């Protein structure tokens, strides 16, 4: 982690839905090469913040910059190259239902207009192997797949262009524990092999403990804690006590007990 520059910089961000205030003056800097985990109770605006970082929603006030550029840029080429450097795994996978598994993963590669079909075939097969999907599933349609497979294939699609920045929205929600372990392992290997920066919203404590470099806690419309896991647990904010202090939290945290 030589480069400590901000990959994503959120400045003075306010979000409002009608009269309902979701975020108030959020400032955040995502460092190069780290895994940043967003936690917060449901309705605290984790997904909204993630969507604002992706430029899918516009904040009421404040700016978001990715790779040092504002996310709203009139230059098409710049926008496109920025998009190609980001991969997104949506909560429900968001696979294109009209395309097969193979075409779903091949789509971003074809859109690049720089690779021939032979290369794309080999790359798709590599991605499928990376997420441990057998090749006979490549010709299936998304409606024929189980929830766990959809998640893994969506991750393969998010990784299709080997992005530097990966957004994961509830990556382990709806997966069984065994698959979660596999998923966590997969993310860890990807991190070591590629210089990957990950921003993740999750509820799952096991995933958080296993992957996070830093944790952002959203509560009361603002960031109440932004630090590594050990220091965040030390915070006495009621939400943090509740979130990490329950039985579930104690079980998940036994693994890092030595650090206290």
């Amino acid at each position, binding site marked *: 982690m030589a480069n400590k520059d901000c990959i994503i910089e959120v400045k003075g961000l306010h979000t409002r839905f009608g009269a309902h205030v979701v975020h108030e003056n959020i400032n955040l800097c995502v460092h190069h090469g780290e895994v940043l985990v967003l936690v917060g109770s449901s309705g605290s605006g984790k997904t909204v913040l993630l969507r604002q970082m992706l430029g899918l929603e516009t904040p009421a006030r404040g700016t978001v910059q990715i790779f040092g550029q504002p996310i709203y840029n009139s230059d098409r080429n710049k926008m496109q190259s920025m998009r190609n450097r980001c991969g997104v795994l949506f909560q429900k996978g968001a696979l294109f239902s009209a395309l097969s598994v193979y075409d779903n993963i091949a789509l971003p590669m074809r859109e690049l207009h720089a690779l021939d079909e032979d290369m794309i075939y080999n790359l798709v097969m*590599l991605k499928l192997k990376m997420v441990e999907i057998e090749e006979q599933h490549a010709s299936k349609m*998304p409606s024929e797949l189980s929830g766990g497979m959809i998640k893994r294939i969506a991750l393969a699609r998010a990784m299709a*262009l080997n992005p530097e920045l990966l957004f994961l929205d509830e990556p382990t929600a709806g997966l069984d524990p065994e698959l979660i372990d596999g998923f966590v392992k997969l993310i860890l290997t990807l991190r070591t092999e590629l210089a990957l920066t990950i921003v993740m919203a999750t509820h799952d404590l096991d995933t958080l403990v296993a992957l996070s470099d830093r944790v952002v806690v959203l509560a009361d419309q603002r960031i109440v804690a932004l630090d590594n896991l050990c220091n965040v647990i030390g915070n006495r904010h009621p939400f943090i006590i509740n979130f990490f202090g329950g039985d579930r939290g104690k079980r998940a945290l036994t693994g890092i007990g030595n650090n206290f």
Partner: protein
Amino acid sequence: MPGNQSSNSPMQIRQAASENGAPRLVLSGKCTLGALKQQMQSLSAELVTFATNPNLHWDLTGIEQLDDAGALLLWQAWGARRPRNLELRPEQERLFNRLGNIPATPEPVPRNLLDPVRALGKTAFLVWEHLTGIIMLTGQLFLDVKYLASHPARIPWREISATLFRTGAQALGVTALVGFLIGIVLSYLSSRQLQVYGADIFIINILGVSIIRELGPMLAAILVAGRSGSSMTAQLGVMRVTEELDALAVMGIPHSMRLVLPKVIGLGIAMPLIVLWTSAIALLGGMVVAEIQLGLSYQYFFNRLSDAVPIANLWLGLGKGVVSGMAIALITCHFGLRIKSNTESLGEGTTNAVVTAITAVIIIDAIFAIIFSNVGL
């Protein structure tokens, strides 16, 4: 960011001689998809020419970053095997190990000469499937009506009234506009012809019979099939995609009774009313032109209408409205329930539903014309 400039430099190829004099190729820089992009093709060609020399010593240790696309580029240049002399870092070693067992590109399936025949057969079966499907749905609706007759408290009044409002009241604007314009066009063209023969007075017969018996019901049916039919199919289709249909089924609420029946009954009631409305507005358009072109007063036109057009024509038009309205609802709901949970099926299903509904409406019209050929003329 100035820090990113240097680290984003794409792969460089440098030839050098090693200590023992063997040719040596040193690769450096970033060998990733993001860094190479458009240079992929040219770089591939360059690497292939280097790979023809089997004694070349490949040194990859200087590569800053290597991803699977970059590794694949080299791998393809080498002809899917490692060169004899290769220097790798351990993490690159892992990457190339994974490349070793990619399944080969599948052979394209040869075209079968029987494919057109098979496609024809499939279409025939599909038509049969739709036919039996619609008949089964109709039968189910009869059973539902029988059940509701003995359980009147369960009649879905709210859904029926919602259908009436959406397919009836909200369709008044568009049907009026189209009806009025068609009335004007028809009256204008006919009056020009009639003037030639001095048979001005027959404009009332022509407009009356053609609009009340034929054009009003047809216009209304085609507009409603496009407007309300597509929305019915799309609504049921989206309910399938979002699993709402399944949610209803596990609550023990039958689709046919709660979703299909209210639409069929609602449109069966709304359609004759729209027919009446469209015919009236079209006649109004015709009357306006008759007054301007032929000088027939509104009063006269109105008084002559009841003599020129036997009342049976009106009942026939309304009857067509009831039948075609129910048919439109039935057909579009049948297609809506068949939609599978993907976006393509939704679009295809809606198109098919509207096309089939309009065709059915015209077929119904033809059947009416044959059966009642000596009524009201």
